[in-house]
Each structure stands twice: as structure tokens, then as C-alpha cells.
């Protein structure tokens, strides 16, 4: 056993890493249920692709850029000494846990932050472009911001003195501002503000919200990086804020719309959990209850801004994650207690106005950088390979056009003909119109194979 490793801390962080990883499939269901049937697989696929792409990029360079030795002492970016996790072995220690475990724990944060952005571009992003975007974004946006806030050398933590326990800026403000940039860049979905775009499966949304909630205990509790009282306090604060977020959102809905909805319950819980993410290690339970309530109430209004202002943040990454992330990060300036922070106190606990501007500066820095850099990366992706799916793919649904699959098979008609025994078909053949087999015309090709399936060529159309 290498010296410095605490087995209890390590055990808890191992479990937390698994908990946080599960949040991304949970997010996939949360988002997947909110889109229409024709693009649910694409929505889920964007999250699963993030798991794979961000993991590879993180291990290759992202971890080193975020947590490697600081470049030039400015606190802006880490160096590439640990690219490919070079120089880190089972004996390496960070705090009281193996460095490899710390890198894996942080990896799960990078994964879900990238996946969260996908909610802003639902139903209309080219899949290959999304994959390319997440790879570049992890290196150019996530890694630097994580360095600023989470690295002991980072300027936000070290020089500015802002507090962000588990990622209110790094994860929530970051994904929200990035999502807004992409939503503006790609433009609204066809039919935005005209057609009813109802969530196709609220049970999926609630299942996803439940998995997110479950994983959040690892997200916030694990951010104590130890099995200790701070982890316990963070966990209790997390639960408290999730619940008041849910209640706050429902109270607004009941009063404003006449009905308390299941989508409101899921959204309110997530808003509360988002808001307490930066604060759970700095506030007491009363603070957490109030932060969650504030997020639930404010976000239930913030999700309506997009209809008034005309940006199609389809699944409310801005209205929930950016807004609640800002609320939680700022309210640390009011609610921080010395028993949790070990020093810093908020305005309401006699600490004066000192902390609030620091929190605001951190939000502003992360928000502005994430928005600008993401817009630039998105522009680059758009120029090289196109970012927005062709209109015919969007109208028919990305599931069929891009992935050659449909999520649900209703009814008994229209299954077409199985072609499993045939030689491989040419790549250009679309799902609705199988091309002739190379060894002669197909004897009983039904075209189109599914009623209502447009004869699309999957993803071969040049960008519109």
C-alpha cells in the first residue's frame, strides 16, 4: 500500500465515480423522453457518444490540461506532462486517494458536462459533427475551466478566492453558456414556436431524473474527495435542495398554470440539485433548502424566456442549468458558513459583502469564456463538416435518417422484409430503399419497407 492513501476515502471515491458515470445514461433518458419519437435515439446517442469521446480525449490530454502542473504560473491551463496519464501509476497519490482514481472521478464530470450541452441542440445536429465538437470542446473549454476552478493552481480558486464545491461553474454555468452558444449558432428547430413539440415519454424523463438524482450523491458527496463529515454534509444538502427545488417549481406551476406536472417535478428537482452543486460544501442545511427553493421557483420562469427571445434552447440547458448554476454559485456569497468552509462566511452569516463579488466574477468569467469559445468551436465545426442536419433529415427524424433505426415499433404492419442472408449492401442505400444486391436484383424488395418512411440517403447529403 503506497503511503498517503486512505482506504476509506478511496472506497468512497471509487463508488462516487461509478455513481457520477451513471448520471450520463440517466441524462440520456431525461433528455430522450423530452424529445419527439422521431429523434429519441439520436438524443440518447449524443450522451452515449460523449461518454466514449470525452473519456478518450480526457485520458489522452484533457486530464493533463486540467490538473497537470500549471503553465507559467498564471492559473489558466495545465501542461501536457501527464498526457496519456504519463507518469501516473498505481502508487501516485492525490490528497488521500490514488491519482488514477482522482483522474477517473474528474473524467465523469467532463463526460456529463459535454453531454448536458446536447439538450440545446436536440433534433437538429449532425451526429458526426457532435462527436467532433465534444472532442474539441473538452480540450479547449472544459479542461481550462476545470483548471481555473478545481486545480489547486487555478486562478479562480487560488487567486480570486471564489468557492465552487462540485462544479456550479465548471459543469453547470459552463454547459449552460455553451448550450446557449450552440443553440444560437444552429438556429431553432423547424416548427419552433409553431408546432407542439411535446415530450414523447414522461416516464422516461422521470426515470432519467431519478438516475441523475441518485448519481448526484456521488457528484456532490464525492467532491469532498474523502469519506468524512464534509461528504455527509454535502449529501444532506444535496437532498435538501433537490426537494425544495421540486416543491418550488410545482408551487409556481399550480398557481400559474393550474396543474402540478410530472415534467415540472423532474425539472424542479434537477434545478435544485444544480443550484446546490457549487454550494453543498459551503452552506448549512437551511442554506441548501433556500438555494433549492430559489432555483425551483426562478427556473420555472426561466424556461419560458426562450419563447419570448426566440432562441431554441430545446431542452432548457440555459433555463435550468445556467440559471440554477448562477443562482447556486452566487448564493454562496450569502449563505456560506464557517463550519463548512473553514473560513469564508456569507453576507447573512456576518461575513459582509466580500464573497459575493468573487462569486459573481467566477460566474462571469466562466460564462463568457464558455460562450465565446464554444461559439468559435461550433463555427469551426460548421465550416469543416456542417453542424446542422439537412432539413429533410430533421423533418423525417434523425433516428431514421442518421442511425437507420426507429425507437419504437408500433403495430403489426410494415416490417418490410428481412435481408440478413444477403451480401452487404452498398453504403449509400437508405433504410427505406434497399439497393439491389450485388449479385442481381432482389426478388421481393418492398420499397419503401416501412409505411411513411421517406426514401432518405443516410447522412450523405451535403450541409444545407
Amino acid at each position, binding site marked *: 500500500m503506497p503511503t498517503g492513501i486512505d482506504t476509506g476515502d478511496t472506497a468512497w471515491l471509487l463508488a462516487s465515480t461509478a455513481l457520477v458515470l451513471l448520471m450520463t445514461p440517466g441524462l440520456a433518458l431525461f433528455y430522450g423522453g423530452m424529445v419527439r419519437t422521431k429523434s429519441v435515439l439520436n438524443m440518447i446517442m449524443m450522451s452515449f457518444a460523449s461518454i466514449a469521446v470525452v473519456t478518450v480525449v480526457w485520458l489522452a490530454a484533457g486530464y493533463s490540461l486540467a490538473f497537470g502542473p500549471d503553465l507559467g504560473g498564471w492559473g489558466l491551463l495545465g501542461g501536457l506532462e501527464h498526457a496519456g496519464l504519463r507518469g501516473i501509476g498505481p502508487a501516485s497519490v492525490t490528497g488521500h486517494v490514488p491519482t488514477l482514481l482522482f483522474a477517473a472521478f474528474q473524467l465523469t464530470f467532463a463526460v456529463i458536462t459535454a453531454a448536458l450541452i446536447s439538450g440545446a441542440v436536440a433534433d437538429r445536429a449532425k451526429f458526426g459533427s457532435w462527436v467532433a465538437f465534444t472532442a474539441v470542446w473538452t480540450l479547449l473549454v472544459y479542461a481550462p475551466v476545470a483548471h481555473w476552478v478545481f486545480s489547486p493552481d487555478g486562478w479562480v480558486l487560488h487567486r480570486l478566492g471564489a468557492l465552487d464545491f462540485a462544479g456550479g461553474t465548471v459543469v453547470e454555468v459552463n454547459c449552460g453558456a455553451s448550450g446557449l452558444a450552440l443553440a444560437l449558432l444552429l438556429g431553432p428547430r423547424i416548427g419552433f414556436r409553431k408546432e*407542439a413539440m*411535446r*415530450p414523447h415519454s414522461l416516464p422516461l424523463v422521470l426515470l432519467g431524473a431519478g438516475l441523475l438524482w441518485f448519481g448526484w450523491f456521488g457528484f456532490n458527496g464525492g467532491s469532498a474527495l474523502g469519506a468524512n463529515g464534509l461528504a455527509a454534509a454535502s449529501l444532506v444538502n444535496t437532498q435538501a435542495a433537490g426537494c425544495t427545488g421540486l416543491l418550488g417549481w410545482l408551487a409556481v*406551476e399550480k398557481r*400559474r*398554470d*393550474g*396543474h402540478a*406536472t410530472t*415534467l*415540472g417535478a423532474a*425539472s424542479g428537482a434537477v434545478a435544485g440539485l444544480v443550484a446546490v452543486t457549487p454550494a453543498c460544501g459551503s452552506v448549512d442545511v437551511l442554506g441548501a433548502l433556500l438555494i433549492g427553493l430559489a432555483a425551483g421557483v426562478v427556473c*420555472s*420562469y426561466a*424556461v*419560458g424566456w426562450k*419563447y419570448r427571445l426566440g432562441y431554441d434552447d430545446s431542452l*432548457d440547458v440555459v*433555463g435550468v442549468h445556467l440559471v440554477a448554476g448562477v443562482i447556486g454559485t452566487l448564493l454562496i456569497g450569502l449563505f456560506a458558513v464557517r463550519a463548512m468552509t473553514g473560513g469564508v462566511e456569507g453576507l447573512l452569516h456576518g461575513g459582509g459583502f466580500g464573497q459575493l463579488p468573487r462569486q459573481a466574477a467566477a460566474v462571469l468569467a466562466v460564462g463568457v469564456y464558455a460562450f465565446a469559445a464554444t461559439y468559435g468551436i461550433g463555427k469551426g465545426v460548421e465550416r469543416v463538416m456542417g453542424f446542422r442536419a439537412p432539413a429533410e433529415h430533421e423533418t423525417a427524424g434523425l433516428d431514421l435518417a442518421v442511425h437507420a433505426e426507429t425507437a419504437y415499433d408500433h403495430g403489426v404492419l410494415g416490417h418490410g422484409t428481412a435481408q440478413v442472408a444477403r451480401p452487404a449492401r452498398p453504403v449509400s442505400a437508405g433504410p427505406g430503399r434497399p439497393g439491389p444486391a450485388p449479385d442481381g436484383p432482389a426478388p421481393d424488395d418492398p420499397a419503401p419497407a416501412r409505411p411513411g418512411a421517406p426514401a432518405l440517403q443516410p447522412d450523405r447529403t451535403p450541409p444545407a
Partner: protein
Amino acid sequence: MKLITAVVKPFKLDDVKTALQELGVHGLTVTEASGYGRQRGHTEVYRGAEYRIDLVPKVRIEVVVEDADAEAVMEAVVAAARTGRIGDGKVWSVPVDGVVRVRTGERGPDAV
């Protein structure tokens, strides 16, 4: 022969089926349908955004009967499907030129 088509509230399907069985109607076809009449639609709210849903779910029931039975069948359907509230649906009949039972090739009223 007459084709009688009824578009009624989905939860009334069982009552209509029972009423037709009591009259001795041997077969019917049911499809899920959606549409609107005077009932128009309803409003749903998702994250504060109101959606006007124009089309209301209905079931369409189709039976072919002999001319002499048509009136009784229609009345049975109407009685079974009525709630007295808006959106109860419609029942109509049209003449049918010919019917063939696929299995046996019987034609006309024998095939019904």
C-alpha cells in the same frame, strides 16, 4: 347491406361491443382514430408552454349488417356510447354493394 361506422369515445368501446353482441352482431372492426368535432381539443402544459391539442383520441367501430338490422344496430350503438356530454361522437351508415367471406367465398348477406 349497410356499413355502419361509429366514431366514439375510447372508454365506451366495451359498452358498444357488449350492446352489439347482445343484438347478435358477429364481427366488427375497431381502429384507433383521432379527430375533432364540436368538442375541439384540449390544452396541455409542458414547462409552462401551453400546447393546444386539436385532435382528440377516438375509436372507430365498423360493422356490416343486413338492411333490416341497420336501424336497430345504429340505435344500440348510440345508446351504448352516449354520455350526454360534448364529444360523444357520430354514427353513420352507407349502403354496401357486395361482401365476400375470404375463407369460403360466400357472398352477400351470408358472408356478413
